[in-house]
């Protein structure tokens, strides 16, 4: 299409596409900026109407409430980047929270063992989903929906209508949920470490970039010799392990766990990821955005409570945000494509 490029001696490589580059950068960061901005506005507005929202306890609550969702969003983004989805995370959290509770109730192990157990159970769930999706070539939506019910069933069968009570949980495990270092609670710190580590891996490592590549064009990825199945399996393992870890943290935070803990969270997680700018069709977005999305959704919930708005509005608002996010994705994609195309014609 660019028959205007007929000159035989094109200019040396210089600034030709500089505009295109900065434009693309802005667009790709636009989401993080927009979500971050919305978050700041929301917090400011709520604080103005009720200063208690941002006192010591308020901030701590915000961080605590969001850290598990942030963790799950990080795991989910890695899967969504490859153009797949993991709907089983909610029930994985429920299962591991209950299993971990059942385990420490009898054995009295410490937080490290509990976390490792949670991670192991989650990774097993991720392994099954991952194998079915990558090697079995079954669509991710169906596989993980099935896994959601299977794991939930397993959980109910195990729980037998009972629940794990906080009183049975050793104090050092509960300490993981309530303790803090230098005034910052452990949970958000843990989420931040996982978030930063994942972000760095996605940015700086070959495996991370290949996840983007797979989501961007599976066919091209195959021809480029990228080990697609191994990478997708890896993404599911990671998502499962993170969800399992989140289950252990859930136990530590709440102490009392019923079988349907975190029931329905998978959809909130996916919403957070999409609102945070990870394209549901894969290939673009960052875990930072996903984390911001999770933070925003949690904050909306907390703010509504403080503003004494009925909590059912939360779901409606989440829905609107989701639609707005997808709509802007589409518009932005069309506009960047056009702008880049125009640019490459010159």
């Amino acid at each position: 299409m660019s028959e205007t490029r007929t000159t035989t001696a094109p200019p040396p490589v210089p600034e030709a596409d500089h505009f295109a580059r900065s434009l693309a950068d802005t667009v790709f960061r636009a989401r993080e900026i927009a979500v971050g901005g919305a978050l700041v506005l929301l917090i400011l507005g709520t604080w103005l109407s009720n200063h208690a929202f941002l006192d010591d306890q308020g901030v701590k609550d915000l961080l605590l409430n969001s850290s598990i969702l942030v963790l799950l969003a990080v795991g989910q983004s890695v899967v969504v980047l490859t153009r797949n989805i993991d709907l089983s995370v909610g029930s994985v959290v429920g299962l591991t929270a209950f299993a971990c509770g059942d385990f420490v109730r009898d054995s009295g192990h410490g937080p490290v063992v509990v976390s490792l157990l949670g991670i192991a159970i989650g990774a097993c769930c991720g392994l099954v989903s991952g194998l079915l999706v990558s090697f079995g070539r079954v669509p991710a939506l169906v596989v993980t929906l099935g896994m959601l019910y299977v794991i939930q069933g397993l959980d109910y069968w195990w729980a037998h209508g009972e629940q794990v009570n906080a009183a049975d949980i050793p104090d050092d495990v509960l300490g993981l949920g309530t303790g803090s270092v230098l005034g910052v609670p452990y949970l958000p710190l843990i989420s931040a470490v996982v978030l930063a580590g994942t972000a760095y891996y996605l940015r700086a490592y070959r495996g991370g970039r290949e996840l983007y590549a797979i989501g961007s064009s599976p066919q091209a990825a195959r021809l480029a010799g990228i080990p697609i199945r191994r990478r997708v399996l890896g993404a599911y393992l990671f998502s499962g392990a993170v969800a399992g870890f989140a289950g252990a943290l859930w136990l530590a935070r709440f102490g009392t766990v019923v079988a349907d803990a975190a029931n329905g969270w998978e959809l909130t997680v996916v919403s957070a990821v999409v609102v945070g700018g990870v394209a549901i069709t894969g290939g673009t977005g960052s875990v930072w955005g996903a984390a911001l999305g999770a933070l925003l959704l949690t904050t909306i919930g907390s703010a509504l409570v403080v503003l004494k708005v009925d909590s059912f509005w939360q779901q409606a608002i989440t829905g609107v945000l989701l639609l707005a996010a997808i709509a802007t994705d589409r518009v932005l994609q069309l506009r960047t494509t056009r702008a880049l195309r125009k640019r490459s014609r010159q």
Partner: protein
Amino acid sequence: MNEQPVLAVRGLGKSFGAVRALSDVSLRLYAGEAHALAGENGAGKSTLIKTLTGVHRPDTGEVLLDGVAVDFHGPADARDAGIAVIYQEPTLFPDLSVAENICMGRRPLRSLRRVDRSAEYAATAALMRRLGVALDPDRPARGLSIADQQLVEIAKALSSDARVLIMDEPTAALTGSETARLFGVVEALRAEGAAVLFVSHRLEEIFRLCARVTTLRDGRWIATDRTADLDEDALVRRMVGRDLDELYPKQPTEPGAVALSVRRLTREGVFRDISFDVRRGEIVALAGLVGAGRSEVVQAVFGVDRADAGEVRVGGRPLRPGSPAAAMAAGVALVPEDRRQRGLVMEMSIERNIGLTGLGRLGRYGLVRRALEHGRAADWAARLRLKYGRLSDPAEVLSGGNQQKVVLAKWLATEPSVLIVDEPTRGIDVGTKAEVHRLLSALAADGLAVLMVSSDLPEVLGTADRVLVMHEGRLAAEIPRADATEESVMTAATGRTGREAA
């Protein structure tokens, strides 16, 4: 030639289900030599290439690298062995930057196995300088023109120091000057000692670029000749296995009443003030350079795109603008340019693809009767001499030429009075091409009005009764068959400067 070939295949065979795609094919590629692979669509060229690059694994025979048998388990193995491929349709990651696309799979690493971004950038910038292209390594691949995407693919091949460069119809979507630049790069690579395997339907390109040519027909090896010992006719004979009676059979016809009449059709910024008539029994070609607005005009006529002003009449009745359904009801059919994206539903079966345009006629009350659908498809498949396994096979298993026949069947089955075809023979082998031309000519002789958009000048001159030439969104000339020559058409297409030929 006692020299050791860099890459060779011996006795290669490959079947997909019951279809034998390749049987007993041999090929030898030498360093510093460009080798062409010729054959009609469906002759097995793509399968051969995919076997060489590890996408398919051969059933029989072996692939030899430097005389040693190798077993490629996937594209990565072939790439690591120094084989680079440029596919007909570039396969880039739209969301990744140019540099990431080029370095994907074998990226420079720094400590702790982290990706070295600055080295990646520098390497890509150096490649772009070497290719003489102004592409920012940091820009995303999304939105690059086909030609630029092709260049990124070449840069990819360069970056891996490929010893064997395989190109599957790289020029199908390129303009003349872009092709020339591509050839310059390939020539330089060859001179540096790379072995090149080149697939093209453009015979003149084969003769221009390659020292030798291997011909395949129906999955079998036919001949390997030096291009110096061959002329185009001889090569076509090898490909087709018979003499082409005539590539452009033209039946004389008497133009009848005006079937399609376009008046002052305008779409802001795209085309302006387009008026013409197409009579029954007439083939009218719409010629011009790529980007002159030809496809846009026919899409507006058919109602896929809206026109801002102007009128289209079919058989004297005004056509409701912006409605393909109304156009179809009025007896207009449009065979689109891009058969993969627009012409066919690739995963759907042949019969269902053909049935799509007439679902209302294949049954009643919204029910589709499978028997009627099958009958209609079988009927048209026979009339167009479609080569297929079963009508229930998905359209994607057919070769390009046969896919095009399915698109034609799909639209001819609507029994149109006006047939619009957009680049009807792009990427189609010579044999099928002649069949398509014969078909169009026969249809016109039966009283159909045909409007054909084509970038293929010999095709325009060979088939059309009249040539309309567009230049930058306007009709630049109307040339009757008798006066139409390459020169007269190109002069009008280039805006009367006649300096540059597409």
